[in-house]
């Protein structure tokens, strides 16, 4: 395949998200400006100007009308996807690390980092249909985990919130009461910071990637560990194919390995694994720096990766990808 290279960001990429129809790709980077691209040919549609710090995360509503972004400038902003206009700004006392719209787009879960005296927290905010009626108030604030909460997403039917972070523990919280329902087992769970989380298309299982060079597949209801995928590099981003039983891991390079490894350019790859057999299928090389973001198009026929090199690489699969047999 011939990947399409999109160099719209001057700084490393942090997050990638496709809209539900799979025709738009939203990219967030440390350069303060989230960008939206057409997912078929990589043509840039527009940028959202307004943040004053690295943008760590974003999510788009189901009808692709609203974009929510979380940034290191301690704000979370709501945007009009089409015009790029800012609709609302939520202010926090610390950088926002993760945002996720609920099913129905009426609620959003936001995580904030520990900062000075503030402990990390998970906030649930109500999102009004009319931006003029939007208020700052939180429906729920959950505190408890130590260390940065890198990712928090909604569980099935918005009944639960799943969080994962620096303390290497995956937790499931009740979204109405804020009580912790389940916690991942210490022995079988991750050993180092969990950097990324990806839900399956139907929400029944999710994948977490960690700096301990592995990714784990969990059941959403019971938080039992289903599968583990081992790599040689710390994992920065994970994605699951909605079409085939494939899991993709993107990673970086251990600091200790930097001087001793082969410095051939374009060597950072997105590794494909068979979801069920846990075996490596292969890798797609090309990035010049560690891969920080991965996303699959909802139709499963293409995927994109964002790296430390500031490039977004959009890959449309060749027909033989769909015939891969282990």
């Amino acid at each position, binding site marked *: 395949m011939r*990947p399409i290279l999109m160099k719209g960001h001057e700084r490393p990429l942090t997050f990638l998200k496709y809209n539900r129809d799979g025709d738009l790709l939203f990219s967030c980077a440390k350069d303060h400006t989230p960008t939206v691209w057409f997912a078929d040919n990589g043509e*840039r549609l527009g940028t959202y100007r307004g943040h004053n710090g690295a943008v760590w995360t974003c999510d788009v509503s189901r009808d692709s009308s609203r974009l929510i972004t979380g940034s290191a400038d301690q704000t979370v902003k709501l945007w009009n996807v089409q015009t790029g206009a800012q609709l609302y700004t939520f202010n926090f006392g610390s950088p926002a690390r993760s945002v996720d719209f609920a099913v129905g787009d009426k609620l959003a879960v936001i995580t904030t980092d520990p900062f000075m005296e503030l402990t990390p927290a998970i906030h649930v905010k109500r999102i009004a249909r009319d931006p003029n009626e939007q208020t700052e108030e939180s429906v729920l604030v959950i505190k408890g985990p130590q260390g940065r909460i890198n990712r928090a997403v909604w569980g099935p039917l918005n009944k639960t919130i799943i969080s994962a972070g620096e303390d290497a523990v995956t937790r499931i919280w009740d979204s109405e009461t804020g009580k912790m329902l389940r916690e991942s087992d210490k022995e079988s769970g991750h050993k180092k910071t969990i950097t990324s989380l990806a839900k399956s298309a139907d929400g029944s299982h999710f994948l977490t990637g960690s700096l301990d060079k592995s990714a784990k597949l969990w059941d959403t209801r019971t938080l039992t560990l289903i599968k583990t995928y081992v790599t040689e590099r710390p994992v920065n981003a994970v994605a699951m194919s909605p079409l085939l039983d494939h899991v993709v891991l993107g990673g970086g390079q251990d600091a200790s390995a930097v001087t001793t490894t082969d410095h051939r350019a374009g060597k950072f790859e997105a590794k494909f694994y068979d979801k069920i057999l846990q075996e490596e*299928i292969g890798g*797609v090389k090309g990035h010049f720096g560690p891969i920080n973001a991965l996303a699959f198009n909802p139709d499963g026929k293409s995927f994109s990766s964002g790296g430390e090199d500031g490039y977004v690489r959009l890959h449309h699969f060749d027909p033989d990808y769909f015939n891969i047999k282990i």
Partner: protein
Amino acid sequence: MATEADPKKLSWADQMENEDNADDLTLFPLPPRQVIGPDENGIKKVIEYKFNEAGNMVKVTSTFHVRKVGTKMRKGAIERRSWAKFGDAVDEEVGSRITMVSTEEIFLERSMVKGREVDETKAREALGRLGKRAGFLMSCRTCGKKYDHFTCRCPYKDLAPQSEPLKHERPSSEDGAAAFSETSKNSYVPPSTREGAKKIIGTDMRRRNEENSIRVTNLSLDAQESDLHELFRPFGPIARVFVAPDYRTRLNRGFAFVSFVKKEDAERAINSLNGYGYDNLILKVEWSLPRSK
């Protein structure tokens, strides 16, 4: 009969003569371009005629496979396609290189499954064993064990190397070889594996080479045997150059061994080339064996 030199009305024969480039065949029209449209398999052929650099008429047949890829787009997606650009994308020039198609084709490189890896190591081992029997005789001179390890890898390195017996052996080698050849078996035995002093001379040479071997480290990855030969040749005749290959990448592992015929040459090479800048890396050149002086 002389024809009037009328510049306007030259016959085509005269025109041909007068022309500087006599092979200007533009007078002869080219056959038209043909397009044989896509058939039921989607194969389209385009036949064109043109002149190549030598002035010959060339027929170029291009075959295309035409495939219509239809994608269903959601209604919203179709609508979004016609949205106006905003933000930084507004003032984008047509030739801006924000979005580029990669020049290289990238494939999903299949990883070596564990089973296959095991086969490779087995194959290498088998090859090594074969080499021991067929090609060279891997015998260690210090401890006398055969087929086990080379002299430089001998675990009993501190045993005194046999230097005396060699001088005696040489004059008697010819007699030895002659004597043995009479009593040899009916099958032909090549000189290198014949019993007798010849073998010792071989090992003598090899051992001498081992002693005159130098190890070159921090070598640039794309250095070849010939580069090293060139680099070390000024110091004296070289018996052997061995560059450690990396089978996966086909480059070298960054080190090599060079064996000189004479020890003094090796010494001079070490003194001169250690610390020498070669292809942006500083070479480290030293004796390959621990200093056995």
